[in-house]
């Protein structure tokens, strides 16, 4: 019987199954950061338990770390305590690798896992962070978990869960110039909604997905959770293998050959059955911009702010009206007439080298518009930052009036000092436009790196295709 990629990954990791289907699933890689782990380590300590396999752990501090003045350390005392607690926990319990604050390889956990080769095809990957779905780009069963589950994985090396259903999102054809993986992700969410993937593992397939780089596939899988799915998946191919080759924790020599021949099997079989199939045509996808306070509230750059009065469902209508009040937008306003105050290029969705190159291509030789108060570029990791500097991208951004920062989660969720002030409107390459996500009262519009760059230059949302 033909199997989906998800079926294969699931079957190869089940240790034990209860009569109702609840299973113990073995975990190969456990990524850890400072916000969701302290209570888990504390639980372990209180029960006098040790990690089952500490060499499955790769840790970093990313959510709370500042992106400027690293010489001053972490000035916010509560943020500092959280980061120091992680330092102490890793010292006490151990890890395969730890990239602490100010290490040259530190960065957003979902950027450094793949970058270090700590994420490998065929693995089960967990992290106390919903965007763990990112790693599914490597044909991994990668899922975000809660803190109790973090403790459970630390103590047992397993996750307790039931199998999800299979969804295939098939994107045929080729993307237009100026349209990226981020636009596919948003278009999919616009189609199926933020609960459309609930209970499913979403596999992305089709010509347009095969044509994406690993960075693009990570962007796409990153936002599977925004469609409600705990994991996103892309089958393994040459692009996957080429990315992994030579990374610090990737296998070498004979073991490499052995691994690659296994990885090649990590694709859905011809004729495998999916519970649901969603089909999109790549060439019909336009650059996307969100207008509301949920990623499903999205339209294309040529679109207008929708009118709640035309929504028949009363709960949805009220939700739209509330979102427009929060966002300070009137129905019917063309998206390209909405002026912005800030720009954020970064986050686990879009802070990799390719994202920065794409944005720099738009920015080069231009200036950030006068009405834009702040335009930030926050690389995803120390290594991304260094690479970008070697390519001179930092100079392109700085010359245009962007600030070039140290790596971290930064303004995606504003746990550090980078945030929106009440009422400020931001073109952001992050993943969530929820109320207050980037700062209390802040107004977030999700876009691709090139669309964020275009908005910075024009001072309002603009079709990047006219600037390329």
């Amino acid at each position, binding site marked *: 019987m033909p199997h989906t990629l998800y079926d294969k990954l699931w079957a190869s990791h089940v*240790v*034990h199954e209860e*009569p*109702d289907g*609840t299973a*113990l699933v*073995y975990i190969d890689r456990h990524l850890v950061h400072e*916000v*969701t782990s*302290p*209570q888990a380590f*504390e639980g372990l300590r209180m*029960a006098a*338990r040790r990690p089952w396999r500490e*060499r499955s752990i790769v840790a970093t501090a990313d959510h*709370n770390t500042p992106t400027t003045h690293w010489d001053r350390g972490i000035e916010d005392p509560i943020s500092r*305590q*959280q980061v120091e607690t992680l330092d102490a926990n890793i010292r006490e319990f151990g890890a395969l690798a730890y990239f602490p604050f100010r290490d040259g390889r530190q960065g957003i956990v979902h950027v450094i896992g793949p970058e270090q080769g700590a994420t*490998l095809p065929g693995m089960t990957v967990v992290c*106390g*962070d*919903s965007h763990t779905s990112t790693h599914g780009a490597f044909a991994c069963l990668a899922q*975000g*978990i*809660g*803190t*109790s*589950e973090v403790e*459970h994985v630390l*103590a*047992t*090396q*397993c996750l*307790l*869960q*039931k199998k999800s259903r299979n969804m295939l999102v098939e994107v045929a054809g080729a993307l237009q110039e100026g349209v990226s993986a981020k636009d596919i992700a948003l278009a999919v969410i616009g189609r199926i909604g*933020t*609960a459309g993937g*609930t*209970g499913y593992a979403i596999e992305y397939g089709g010509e347009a997905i095969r044509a994406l780089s690993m960075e693009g596939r990570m962007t796409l899988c990153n936002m599977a*959770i925004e469609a*409600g*799915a*705990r994991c996103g998946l892309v089958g393994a191919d040459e692009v996957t293998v080429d990315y992994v080759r030579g990374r610090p924790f990737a*296998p070498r020599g004979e*073991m*490499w050959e*052995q*691994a690659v021949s296994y990885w090649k099997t990590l694709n859905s079989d011809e004729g495998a059955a999916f519970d649901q199939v969603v089909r999109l045509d790549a060439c019909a996808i336009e650059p996307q911009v969100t207008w509301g306070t949920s990623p499903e509230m999205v339209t294309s750059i040529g679109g207008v702010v929708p009118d709640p009065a035309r929504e028949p469902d009363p*709960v*949805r209508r*009220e*939700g739209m009206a509330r979102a427009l009040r929060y966002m300070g937008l009137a129905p019917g306003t063309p998206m390209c007439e909405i002026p912005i105050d800030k720009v954020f290029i970064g986050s686990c969705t879009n802070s990799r080298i390719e994202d920065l190159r794409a944005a720099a291509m738009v920015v080069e030789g231009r200036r950030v518009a006068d009405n834009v108060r702040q335009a930030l570029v926050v690389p995803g990791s120390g290594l991304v930052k260094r690479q970008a500097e070697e390519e001179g991208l930092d100079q392109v951004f700085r010359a245009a009036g962007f600030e070039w920062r140290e790596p971290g989660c930064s303004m995606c*969720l504003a*746990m550090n000092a980078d945030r929106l002030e009440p009422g400020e409107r931001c073109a952001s390459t992050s993943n*969530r436009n*929820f*109320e*207050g*996500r980037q700062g209390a009262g802040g107004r977030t519009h999700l876009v691709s790196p090139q669309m964020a760059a275009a908005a910075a230059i024009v001072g309002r949302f603009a079709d990047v295709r006219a600037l390329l």
Partner: protein
Amino acid sequence: MRPFTILDGLVAPLDRANVDTDAIIPKQFLKSIKRSGFGPNLFDEWRYLDVGQPRYQGAQILLTRSNFGCGSSREHAPWALDDFGFRAIVGESFADIFFNNCFKNGLLPVVLPAAEIDALFALVEVTPGFRLRVDLPNQVVVRPDGHVIAFDIDAFRKECLIHGLDDIGLSLRHADKIRAFEERRRAEQPWLFA
């Protein structure tokens, strides 16, 4: 873990769909390294609009719409709900990670059909002190007028919740199986253990 069997509690409504975990507990309150103390910041400023009104003081059941708990995996969301006093959340649907996190904290998420949820919102609106009886062993929600609504729950989760069982302790009963699995994996895919 605190067991959950039968709860007779006051109901507070939150008439919105897609309530995300950033709204349940905003990130400025996530910096604690403890599990407790999040209740006072539950729903932040929203609280004064809905569930924080005096008539809902002491509510143990939260009534909501679809896709409750979407977004971030932060377990601080169920911790905050629990700390505030909620023991059950009745809604049309829940986001996966949040749903899962509830069970780890003795909090019961109950999924009911949309028409029943509509009716409950209408009743809460017009009935001061509106209560519900959530009976986990029998898998029913009972309205004060005697109307009984059945709900589904995984057998394993139900058992754990009723007896307040600790997941880790349960899983470690299979430690030998985990070890055997691990050894096999180490032999077949040695690069994962390098």
